[in-house]
């Protein structure tokens, strides 16, 4: 039975924004760009980690750890690409690297994949999108979110709940029953992994993981929260993908760190297009998706203007084009 359009890319094809042949060309997978990108990635992590080492006995340690942390929290971007299987052509490599990234930032990979599926199905829809970040009501609420305290609180309670063998009602909605045991095992392995490292620190007196990994991640997470806000916060809570997602034009180094995920509206339009082809998809979708030319800063100016009442709140918009 013929059904209504369900995916943004089908809508874009029907609207004639790009042809099926162009889409298929953009979807073409390759391991090459990912290996080059990863080599640069390791070099960057090594360089910022080196700065932490060089500054260990000075007050410069804290800016160095923050810089290193900003790089480390961008493992989220790589993991995000991996759960879409768009980093490597070789599918199992995406699973491997996605899981390793998840270990770095305490984000169990398989659970994230299921949660993220519903984010793509119900983007920005209250009560349905499990990753929805609400537009804060006040400047205080905005700063509170960016502090990452609510994020860590939610993530740790989620991890420990899963490790204890329980999923809440919302999680049960987007995960199949047959997978619950796997997701619980995944959470337990994550907890065990961190306990093992903590045990190593206590037994050896070597606290390198704290200085080179955990503290930097804590210091870097507010930057990731601010970046994540630019994707959908301040855009209307409607199903129309031309309205509910924001792409941000940012500098080349930042594009490198986020694996081109600043082209977020393009990604939502065609989640099967690999990261290295997103700039080309951006060219195709110009004028069709919402783009913030001032980048992350412009997105935050837009958000702050809304919560200060300088421009209409996006969460009051009930239909596209309103």
């Amino acid at each position, binding site marked *: 039975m013929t059904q209504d359009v369900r995916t943004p890319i089908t809508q874009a094809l029907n609207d004639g924004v790009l042809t099926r042949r162009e889409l298929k060309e953009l979807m073409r997978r390759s391991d090459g760009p990912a290996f080059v990108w990863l080599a640069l990635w390791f070099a960057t992590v090594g360089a910022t980690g080196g700065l932490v080492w060089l500054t260990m006995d000075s007050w410069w340690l804290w800016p160095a750890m923050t810089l290193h942390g900003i790089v480390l929290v961008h493992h989220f971007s790589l993991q995000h690409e991996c759960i879409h299987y768009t980093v490597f052509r070789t599918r199992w490599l995406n699973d491997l690297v996605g899981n390793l990234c998840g270990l770095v930032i305490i984000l169990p990979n398989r659970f994230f994949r299921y949660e993220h599926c519903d984010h*793509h199905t119900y983007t920005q829809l209250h009560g349905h999108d499990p990753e929805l970040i609400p537009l804060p009501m006040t400047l205080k609420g905005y700063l509170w979110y960016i502090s990452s305290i609510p994020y860590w609180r939610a993530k740790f309670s989620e991890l420990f709940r899963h490790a204890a063998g329980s999923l809440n009602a919302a999680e049960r909605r987007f995960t199949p029953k047959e997978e619950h045991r796997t997701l619980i095992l995944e959470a337990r392995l994550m907890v065990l992994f961190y306990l093992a490292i903590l045990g190593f620190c206590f037994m050896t007196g070597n606290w390198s993981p704290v200085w080179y990994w955990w503290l930097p991640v804590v210091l870097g997470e507010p930057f990731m929260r601010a970046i994540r806000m630019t994707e959908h916060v301040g855009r209307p809570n409607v199903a129309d993908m031309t309205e509910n997602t924001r792409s941000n034009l940012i500098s080349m180094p930042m594009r490198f760190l986020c694996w081109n995920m600043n082209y977020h509206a393009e990604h939502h339009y065609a989640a*099967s297009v690999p990261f290295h082809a997103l700039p080309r998809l951006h060219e195709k979708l110009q004028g069709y998706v919402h783009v913030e030319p001032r980048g992350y800063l412009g997105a935050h100016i837009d958000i702050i203007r809304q919560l200060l009442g300088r421009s209409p709140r996006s969460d009051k918009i009930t239909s596209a084009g309103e």
Partner: protein
Amino acid sequence: MMREKVWQDVIAVAQLEPGDVTPVTAGDRELAIYDTLDGIRVSYARCTHGAANLCDGYFDGCHIECPLHQGLFDARTGAALAAPARVGLRMIEARVENGMVQILI
């Protein structure tokens, strides 16, 4: 009494996307015609997980990936290979006769 299945033309082979998946509508059925490494295969076009049209997904000659959630199916057998897809595709018997793709339906 059940109607006996008959072979029906759906599309000319020359109109298929070579090495890719081609969308076809037959009556009220949305079909996906796969030009696989093992020959032509036909399934219902909608993903069994989120009902996205698989014809818009990535096809490597053997596997079709859902464009919405990247669930994976074997286009030759219909088997669901990767989450979130769990239920296999409904395949339709197909053949090529006189330059036409035909389905038994």
